[in-house]
Every structure is written in C-alpha cells, then in structure tokens.
C-alpha cells in the first residue's frame, strides 16, 4: 500500500476577511459622565468636546431666553441610555410610545419657535413654564427618591409626573402651614412640624421615607416664614378703604390679611390730643393719609418690605421704624402703630394724592413730602433698625 499521498495542487491563500465596520457613533445619554441624567456628557462624547463646555452652553441657553430648558428636555426624552437599544419608530407598544414621544417633542419645539415668531411672549408664557415644570418635577423626584432621571422617555415622564405631584402636595402643605401660623394657630403648626420631625427620625431607623422630607420641610419653612415675618391673616382678603368723616368714626385698629388697606383721615377732623391707631396688614400695602395740621408719630415693624413715612424711608427685612414726634399744644397727634408681615407701609399727607393714580402704589411721594409732618415740633428723628434705609 502506497502511503504516499498524491501531490496536491498548491492552495491559494484564503481571501482576507472584510474589516468590520467601525462602530457607529450614537448620540446617547452617558452613564459615566453625568451630573443629572447624562445628556451633556452624551452630547460631549458625540461631539468630542469637554462635557463642561456643553453644560455651560445649556445653562447659558436656559438663562438667556430659556431655549436650553427645551433643548435639555427634548434631549432627555429622545436620547437613549448608553447601551440601550436604539429607539424604534414602529412596531410594538414601546415603539408606538417612542414614536408618539418623538412626535410630541417635535410638535412642542416647532410650536415653540413658530409661536415665538408669531405671538412672541404669549406662547413663551405657556411652553417655557411647562418645560420648567417638567424639569422641576424631575428634580423633585430625584431629591425625593434618590433616582436620577433615567430609562425610557415614558419612565422619565412618569418620574416628572410623580415629582410634580409631590411638589403639588408640598405647595398644599406649605399653604396650610402658612395659614395655620398666620391665623393664630402657630402652636398647632409648630406641633405638626415637631410631629413630622419625630416621624422622620423614627422612619430613619425603621423604614426610610425620603419622600416625606420635602412636604415636611415645606410645612416647616412656610410656617417659619409666616411666624418670623409676623404675618397675620386676620381681617380677610381684598382691598379696604376707610374714610372716617368724624373723630368718632376713627377706629382704634384697622387690619387686613392680604390686600391693600387705605386709611384716609383727611376728613376726620381730629381734635387736639393723641389718637392711637393700629394698622395691621399681613401681606400687601397699607396707606395712611393724614391732613397737614395733624402731627404723626410712627412706630412700625415690617417683616419683609419697606416703610415710607413722609420723608423717611426704610426697607429690607425685619424693618423697625420709630419716628417719635411731639405736637404743640392744641395740635392733634396720631400715634400710629404699624405692623406688616410682607409689604409696604406709606404714611403721607393728602398733598398729591388726588393728582396721582387711585392706588397707593407710587414712587413720587417725595415731591409731595418735602416739609412733611410739619405740624410736629422737635422730637426725635426716625430711628430705624434692620432693613437698608
């Protein structure tokens, strides 16, 4: 048996395998380079630039005009997560949702630009707040759950919706706390805050409930703000104007919760001697008008706002204003005690009021106040505390 193998024809080398296509660059949210959701990191990787530069551009666009908010929101919804399958435009429930999302974003962005071109600020007042609301919802959900915005557009929008719901709860709780603190139930509001704190401490050891932090904080901060500014909601809401026509009609106290309060003493014909008047406004504007023959001594506090009494003005936070004056014999004197939570107290003579708008909001009192409060003699000048006057 012949073991020799027959000579074979020389074989040609195998054809070289085609080189694999270079990986296609995909615009996707970065998992590694992210501060919030990886949008800026993904764009930076796609463009080959520093992510910080992209973030600066986005923030600048958001601040100057607000376009950055829309762009960020659109990118957040359209860009897939790093490594996730590319979004599909057809087939299946997820594909339909994706397609609707893409369509919705395109319509939103198109409507934004078209609307801005046609009606300018009208659409801007609707669309931009909507975008800000969505981002605020995402931020709230991020804070409450510890979960960064991630996943499919549907999951992101779900997180935004939950965050907005949480913010709504926070607003309601804050309003309740402010109202409780401003209507004399400060102890109740404080008790609720202490109770919420105790629940959180207990929950920290048993079952963490971070979603409770934001509502509880909103309650504490709103109640604290109202208490610290001295806001008092007694007296109702709205505008009030009192024009007593005799000294007997002048009340000892005028109060209003929220709104504008005007106390016009020009026709009251006050007799010589002191007349103590309290003006108490929670949030708003108080105007006290006195005739020129009446001396006014003022002792007023404003939590946040300003006091403008004749030619003396002081504003800021925790404003204390004391202007003690003496009246000569035979001259009536109004001893005014003012207490405003947030707002402005104006004390002026009647000069100029008829020439100006009906509302007391005006900035040209000075020209009418020159030599104001001249019915007084001597006495201490205004002493102010807090504020910046």
């Amino acid at each position: 048996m012949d073991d020799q193998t027959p000579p074979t024809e020389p074989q040609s080398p195998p054809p070289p395998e085609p080189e694999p296509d270079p990986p296609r660059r995909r615009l996707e949210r970065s998992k590694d380079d992210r501060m919030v959701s990886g949008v800026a990191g993904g764009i930076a990787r796609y463009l080959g630039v520093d992510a910080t530069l992209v973030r600066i551009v986005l923030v600048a666009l958001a601040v100057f005009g607000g376009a950055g908010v829309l762009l960020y929101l659109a990118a957040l919804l359209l860009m897939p997560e790093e490594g996730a399958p590319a979004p599909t435009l057809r087939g299946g429930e997820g594909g339909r949702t994706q397609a609707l999302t893409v369509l919705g974003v395109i319509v939103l962005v198109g409507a934004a630009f078209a609307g801005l071109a046609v009606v300018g600020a009208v659409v801007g007042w609707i669309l931009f707040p909507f975008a800000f609301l969505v981002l605020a919802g995402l931020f709230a959900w991020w804070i409450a759950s510890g979960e960064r915005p991630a996943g499919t557009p549907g999951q992101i929008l779900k997180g935004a919706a939950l965050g907005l719901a949480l913010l709504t709860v926070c607003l309601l709780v804050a309003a309740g706390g402010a109202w409780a603190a401003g209507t004399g139930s400060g102890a109740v509001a404080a008790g609720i805050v202490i109770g919420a704190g105790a629940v959180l401490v207990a929950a920290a050891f048993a079952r963490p409930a971070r979603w409770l932090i934001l509502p509880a904080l909103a309650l504490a901060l709103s109640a604290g703000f109202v208490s610290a500014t001295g806001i008092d909601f007694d007296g109702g809401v709205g505008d009030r104007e009192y024009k007593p026509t005799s000294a007997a009609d002048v009340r000892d106290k005028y109060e209003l919760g929220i709104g504008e309060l005007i106390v016009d003493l020009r026709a009251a014909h006050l007799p010589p001697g002191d007349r103590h008047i309290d003006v108490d406004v929670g949030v708003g504007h108080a105007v006290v008008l006195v005739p020129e023959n009446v001396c006014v001594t003022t002792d007023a506090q404003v939590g946040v706002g300003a006091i403008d009494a004749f030619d003396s003005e002081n504003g800021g936070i925790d404003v204390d204003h004391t202007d003690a004056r003496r009246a000569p014999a035979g001259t009536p004197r109004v001893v005014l005690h003012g207490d405003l939570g947030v707002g402005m107290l104006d004390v002026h003579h009647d000069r100029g009021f008829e020439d100006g708008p009906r509302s007391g909001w005006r900035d040209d009192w000075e020209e009418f106040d020159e030599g104001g409060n001249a019915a007084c003699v001597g006495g201490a000048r205004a002493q102010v505390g807090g504020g910046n006057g």
Partner: protein
Amino acid sequence: MVATARRPDVPTLVAGLALLALGGLLMLDSQDAIELRLGALAPIACAAVGAILLASGLSRRD
C-alpha cells in the same frame, strides 16, 4: 445568631432632627418665649436645608 443593628438612613435622620429643631423654635415663638425674626430664621433654615442636601449627597456615594 447575632442580630445586627439596622443602620439608620442618614438623610431621613438629618431631616428629622432639623425639623425637630425648627419646630422647637416655632413652638417657642408661638409661646412668646422668643421673638423669631426673619433675619435669624433665614440662616437657620438655610443651614437645615444644606445639611439635608449634604447628607443626601454623601449617602449616594456610599
């Protein structure tokens, strides 16, 4: 079998303690034991919020 103590959730604990402090201040103010002014409350509130955010941020690093 050795029972291990459960580790508290730090952000929730910090938030609870901050709220207890704020609530205590509000209670003292409502009883006229102190006069709470905005100039004093504002930095306290900012410190409380900052402590909560700090605790949340640090806990995410764990």
